[in-house]
């Protein structure tokens, strides 16, 4: 998309900064986050692409990406980022924003109930359902 119709407003950029304490615009695309991501092969956009989209303010694409929900917050990217931008926290800030803006989500219990409780609670907290 060469000429995006809509990019992030200043307040949206501020929100990300407020939630993560980091400046996504400092990302210089070294791709270390994507190189070490254990979930990268399942993602439609790699972590460094998500960072780039966030940097460009193309939030619609960020929110439409499956990668947001595939990230398991294992913090491998955050601990290796040479700019200390914590891509895992940036992903979380987008998840949280999206969930906050989606009211009246249906509460379902559609997972495998035989898994350890920690998995159920973590999944429920991450997806708010």
């Amino acid at each position, binding site marked *: 998309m060469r000429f995006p119709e809509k990019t992030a407003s200043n307040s949206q950029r501020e929100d990300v900064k407020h939630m993560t304490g980091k400046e996504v615009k400092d990302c210089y695309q070294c791709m270390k986050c994507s190189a070490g991501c254990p979930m990268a092969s399942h993602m439609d956009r790699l972590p460094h692409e998500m960072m780039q989209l966030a940097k460009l303010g193309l939030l619609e694409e960020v929110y439409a990406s499956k990668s947001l929900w595939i990230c398991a917050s*294992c913090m491998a990217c955050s601990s290796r980022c040479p700019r200390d931008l914590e891509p895992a926290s940036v992903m979380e800030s987008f998840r*949280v924003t999206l969930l906050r803006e989606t009211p009246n989500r249906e509460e379902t219990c559609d997972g495998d109930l035989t898994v350890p409780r920690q998995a159920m609670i973590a999944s429920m907290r991450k997806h708010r359902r």
Partner: protein
Amino acid sequence: MLSYYPGCTVRAQQDDGFEREALALLASLDIQTHELEEWECCGAVYPEARDEYVGLLSSVRALQRTWDAGSQGMLTLCSACFHVMRRVNHRMKRDEEAQRRVGGYLGNMYQGETKVFHLLEVLRDLVGYPRIQEAVVTPLKGEKMACYYGCMLLRPKEELGLVDSENPRLMEALMETLGATTVRFPYQTDCCGAYHVYREAPLAAAASLKVITAAREAGATQIITACPLCKHNLEACQASLPQKERLPVAYMTAPLVKALGGVQRLEQMAFQNGEKGDPSHAFSGENSQ
């Protein structure tokens, strides 16, 4: 004395022996533990977004209660509990806004005074390897251990500070103390797929299988972990493999207990220790029931 925080998963899966083994082990090594009163779930994930304060509440409550109990610190067995408690504590030490908001809600002023320990850390720092080595009765000869850490014990290193997050050697050192050999394998610090097993099981299985394959190729005869969820994932991903290709998965307490003479012997020793000294010493896995 350490306040023992069981956490939901360890307590719910009591039958797998992690809790019993860990408490018997510590009691036999003269570490006193007492179950924290009225503990509740830590929340399972650390609230990563900085403007979410509700996720901190239950952890702060437990940390405050540990501090009020006047114990040396909080003992956790589950990696996730350790991860969440330690990070919340770290945050409460530094973030004045969090102190104000959480304090306003809970009616206290908690500033991260409590120390949070993981079982591995207690064995390393409070007990020490020489003491463990002395207690070994049947050295683990011929076992080739793959020590899998997972994410929760390691990252972020600045906040957890337990081990080197890229090249952890804690479990290896412990296993070598018992006379076992350890193998180096890639993916030792990679994620097992974590909570994805609940709704996206194939995703978690793919991540776990990578760990298992790497460990097997490195020549391991078993893989050990400190996390109930990692253990579940590492086992579940092997369900479709033929029997002879499966790698046994165990908690890191299992080889320790085995080398130290079995859980019954340890409980007996703990009981004798308790009779000699403080009666509250007697290990107490079922206090809350």
